Structures are given as C-alpha cells and as structure tokens.
C-alpha cells in the first residue's frame, strides 16, 4: 500500500498522504469508471484482481525467495478444481451411489469457508510436493522441473476422468457454485430499494478485500525473520546457511505459502467463472503471471500489483482498439488482434529488459521495521 503510493510519480514522493488517498480512491472507484465503458470492463478488473493475487503469490516465490517457478499456475488449478469438486453438481454425476448415500443427490455444495481453505491447503500441499524434489536445484534447472510440474498437473486434469471421474477430463466441470458469503450470493445483484448493485461489483469488492489481505500478509512476511531469511537465501545461499538459516525449510515454506495464494485465487476464479477446464491452466498462463511479476518489478509488492493490472487490462484495450484502428488506416484488418497482442507483449518485454531491467517499479525492499530503526537511531 505504502509502496504503491510511493510508486506514483511525482505525488508519491512529495505528498505521501495524498498519494495513499489516491490509491484508495482508485481501488474503490475503478469499477465505477470502468462501467462507463461497459460491463466487460468491470469483468476485466475482476480478473485483474485475481491475477494480482497470483502475481503476489508468485512474487513471494520468485521475487522474495529467488526460486524461479514456471509451473505456478498448477496451484491455481488445484484451487479451482477443489472448488469445482466440492461445490458443484459434478460429484453427484461422477459418484451417484456415494452422493445418494451422503444425501447429496444434487452434488456437493459445501460453503466457501470450507472449500476455499481446502483448496488453499491442497495447493500448499502441492507446493511442498513440488518443493521436495527441487530443493537442490537452482536457476535454469529449477525452472525446467517446475515447468514440468505445471504440465503434469494440467495433464492430470485432462486425464483424471477415468477410471474415476474426478476432473471430468478435457470438458471441465460446469455449473460451479458462486461465492456465497453466509447466505449472501455474490452472483446475484444486490437490491437496495430501487438501487441495484451488479454482481460484477460485488465480486470486485470481494476480490479487492482478498488482495488487500494478501498484501498485508505479504508485507508482514517480508519484514520478519522469514522475509530476511528468504532474501538472504536469494542473495547468497552459502552465506545464508553459514548464519544458520535452514535453507530446506525456508524453500519449502516459500513454495507452500506461494502456492497457498495460488490456491485461494484458483478457488475464487472457479466461483467467479462458474466453470473450470484444463485450458485455463496452460503453460502460457504460468508465463503470463511470471511476466506480470517481472514486468512490474521482482521482489516488490507494488510491482506485482501494477504488473498484473497493466498486463490484464492492456490486451483487452488492444482488442477493442486494434480492429477499428486497422480498418480506419488500411481499410481492412491486416493483423488479427490475438497475433498483435503477442507481438506487442513481446515487444514490451524486450523494451522493458533494455530500458528498465528491474521492472516498472524497481524493488527497494525493506526488511526491517522503520519505526524500530528510527527508535534505535534516536538513542544513539
């Protein structure tokens, strides 16, 4: 939050309080502005928030602990499929006998406060399962193994419809329950008298709450013995061992905590989308989240947030601009927007690496509490 405010050009340095107010204002007002351009844009913002959670979680692994993970989307998949399995009619279709026995003939529909933690826990477990074999690997080798892990999970999702139908294979699982907060269904528009609040707004503010919570948690982690241990391990693993950091445990912690964020985001995605299929969890998605982290600035909370926002919104904006502009200029569509998107994204990455190699918002991370440091300096 403070990092975000500081990152605002000009204002952030001169008037931090105004900058903070601006961040809050934008966060709260964004969907209202987006709505002026149509409902799709609110939906884009909802997705941007989900990607923020993913980027924040991946940033924990890649940016803080220095472990390059190319299979991060697998944890997102675990979270989403947990939601799909525990909160949809699928269970009754796949296991009619068991479902009938349990008195759940229309499938399992567990409440979110069971399903979401279950998804997070399973994702954390998956993080540890991934973590153990790769403890000794670093850099490129680690990247390759994590990439393989991501693909394995996706292929499991595609093929686990036989002999027991758990994931319903390539078709995916349909009709997922929406987010129901103790009887308040976010998928239904809220009516206050004559005034109607659209479901997309409800999801937006709910996701915003989750992102703010994640940021708070991650900030606290960074300025703690754990955050310092991660940074130490990332900067110099041998020296980290020499001051007594249990590198194995710290790596596993990074993998499992990072995965937890992925799992929660996955659950939210399932509830929001109402439908999951293996297509949503391809390698390209892992890369996209990684690009968000790198683009925004690795090891940096504000970077992950801004990176996710820009890289979710830009392609959508492009999609809406590319066709009319091309038609106006050439009288026909020369480049398909999808092709153009990849082209511009790659170009943006290359320029970024040349001009600002440490990202839009370069990390100058803190690992100590400013107020404690100031107190000590005052004593001296």
């Amino acid at each position, binding site marked *: 939050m403070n990092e975000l405010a500081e990152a605002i050009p000009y204002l952030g340095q001169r008037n931090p309080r105004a900058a903070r107010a601006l961040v809050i204002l934008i966060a709260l007002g964004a969907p209202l502005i987006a709505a002026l351009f149509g409902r799709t844009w609110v939906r884009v913002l909802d997705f941007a928030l989900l990607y923020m959670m993913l980027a924040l979680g991946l940033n924990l692994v890649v940016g803080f602990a220095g472990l390059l993970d190319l299979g991060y989307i697998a944890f997102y998949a675990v979270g989403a499929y947990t939601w799909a399995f525990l909160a949809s009619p699928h269970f009754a279709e796949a296991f009619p006998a068991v479902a009938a026995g349990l008195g759940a003939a229309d499938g399992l529909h567990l409440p979110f406060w069971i399903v979401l933690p279950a998804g997070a826990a399973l994702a954390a477990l998956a993080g540890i399962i991934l973590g153990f074999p790769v403890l000794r690997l670093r850099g490129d080798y680690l990247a390759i193994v994590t990439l393989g892990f991501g693909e394995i999970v996706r292929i499991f999702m595609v093929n686990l419809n036989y002999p027991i139908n758990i994931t319903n294979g390539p078709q995916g699982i349909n009709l997922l329950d929406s987010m129901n907060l103790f009887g308040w269904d976010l998928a239904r528009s809220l009516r206050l008298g004559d005034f109607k609040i659209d479901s997309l707004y409800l999801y937006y503010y709910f996701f915003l709450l989750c992102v703010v919570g994640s940021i708070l*948690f991650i900030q*606290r*982690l960074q*300025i*703690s*013995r*754990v955050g*310092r*241990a991660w*940074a*130490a391990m990332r*900067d*110099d693993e*041998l*020296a*980290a*061992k*020499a*001051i*007594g*950091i*249990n*590198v194995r445990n710290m790596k596993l*912690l990074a993998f499992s*905590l990072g995965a937890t964020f992925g799992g929660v985001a996955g659950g939210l995605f399932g509830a929001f989308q109402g439908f999951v299929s293996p297509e949503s969890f391809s390698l390209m998605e892992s890369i996209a989240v990684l690009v968000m982290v790198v683009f925004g600035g690795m090891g940096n909370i504000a970077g992950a947030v801004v990176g996710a926002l820009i890289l979710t919104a830009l392609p959508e904006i492009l999609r809406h601009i590319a066709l009319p502009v091309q038609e106006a200029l050439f009288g026909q569509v020369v480049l398909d927007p999808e092709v153009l998107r990849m082209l511009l994204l790659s170009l943006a990455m290359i320029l970024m690496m040349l001009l600002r190699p440490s990202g839009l918002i370069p990390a100058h*991370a803190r*690992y*100590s*509490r400013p107020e*404690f*440091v100031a*107190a*000590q*300096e005052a004593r*001296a």
Partner: protein
Amino acid sequence: MITLLEARGISKHFGGLTALDDVSLTINKGEVYGLIGPNGAGKTTFFNVLTGAYVPDAGEFVFDGTELPTGKPHRVVAEGIARTFQNIRLFRDMTALENVMAGHHIRTRASVWGILTQNRHTREEERLTTERAFELLRYVGIERFARTVSKNLSYGDQRRLEIARALATEPRLLALDEPAAGMNATETGQLRVLIEQIRHDGTTVLLIEHDVKLVMGLCDRLAVLDFGRKIAEDVPAAVQKNEAVIEAYLGGGKHAD
C-alpha cells in the same frame, strides 16, 4: 584450560586429492587460535568441514562436550559456531542493519502465524532483533552505515559487517577466514583491536590468516597445516622456530640438494 573444540582425526578427500589428512587439534575456551599454512594447505577446507558445508570422510568434532552434526550448517550454527568467508559474502541488497538482523535468525522463534497476526511476542522479538543488530554495528564500529545497502560499503567495512553478522548468531566460537585479506595496515590494526575485544568479551576465535605479523601478535596458539596434514601446534614463538614449519613455508634444504 577448558577445551571448547576438539577435532579428532578429520580427513577429507576430493577425488584423488587429500585436502585434510587425519587432522586433530584442540581449541581452548577464551583463546585466539590461529590456523596457518601455505596456499592450498587445507585451511578453508577445515573451516568448511567444521561448519558443516562439507561432510568429512573420517573424524569428528566435539564442541563443548557434544559431537557436532556433520553436513548440517544450520545445526552447527545453532550449537554456537559462526564463520566469515575469505571472499566476503554479504547479502548485497540488504542494508548493513538488515544483514545483521538476518544473522539473528537462528536465535528467534516467530512463526508464520505470529508474523501474520503480529502478536506481542513477534513484535517484541522484532524490536529486540533491531536493537541487538544496532548494538553489534556499534560494536564493530559501523553503526553510521546502518541504513546503507551493504554492497555500497567500503571493503574494510564489509569485512566488519560480516563479523557483526556472524556475531549476531551468538556464537561461542567465531571462525574468521582471512579477515585481514586486502586490508591496509591501518585497517589491519583496527581489526586486531576488534578481535582482541571479541576475545575479551568471552568469544573464542579461530583465525585463518596469512598476515604473519597479525597472527603472531594476536594468537595464543597456532596450528600449521601443510598438504592437509598438521605439522605443528604450539604457541607462536615455538611455531616460528619449528623446522617443519620453516621447511613448509620456505622450501626445505632436502629438496634443494
């Protein structure tokens, strides 16, 4: 004399190369113990085996009455042995203060849950860690650089910071690997004062050093390694006169014939 560390028959081979050959030595509580020898004699390998970075092929270390775990650096640090490196290894992107705070890791307990909720214990521990890190920076004389990112410190100050970071682990034995390497005479003089202070404050020091003046002036006892074998262990004055040592350093008359 109370023995703090006893090395018993430590051997370490790398392929066909014998880096350490049946090295035994004892370090007493409260002394500065020097480990010298020509380049490639196995001094740093000894450090690496002692601190758990390598697993010895034979032998064991007894530290204050208990056998040290091998190949588990964090357990060795927990037992109370800290080290510095020949080529400085700081956490580049952290400030001087944060480097020392990181060094305190093993003596702190806050869990992820405590960090998430910022309960009283976690906050208090964090405050104490900050306070302790400041004290250590003051102790080695670089507190004015507390907020400086460590990669921007001068060479001598980086050495000091590394010592402060090692001290943050609250060691009973501090192992310094060539702390005076690359220092000028003034800096070496200051380093000597610092090491004497550390000993005075009750921490035993194990010192690898090439600077003969520093070693002879500072150490209570010395061991000399040559081709992985211990060829002498005595007080500095006696080591200086030891024939095997002179031969190792200057080349023996036998070979010249």
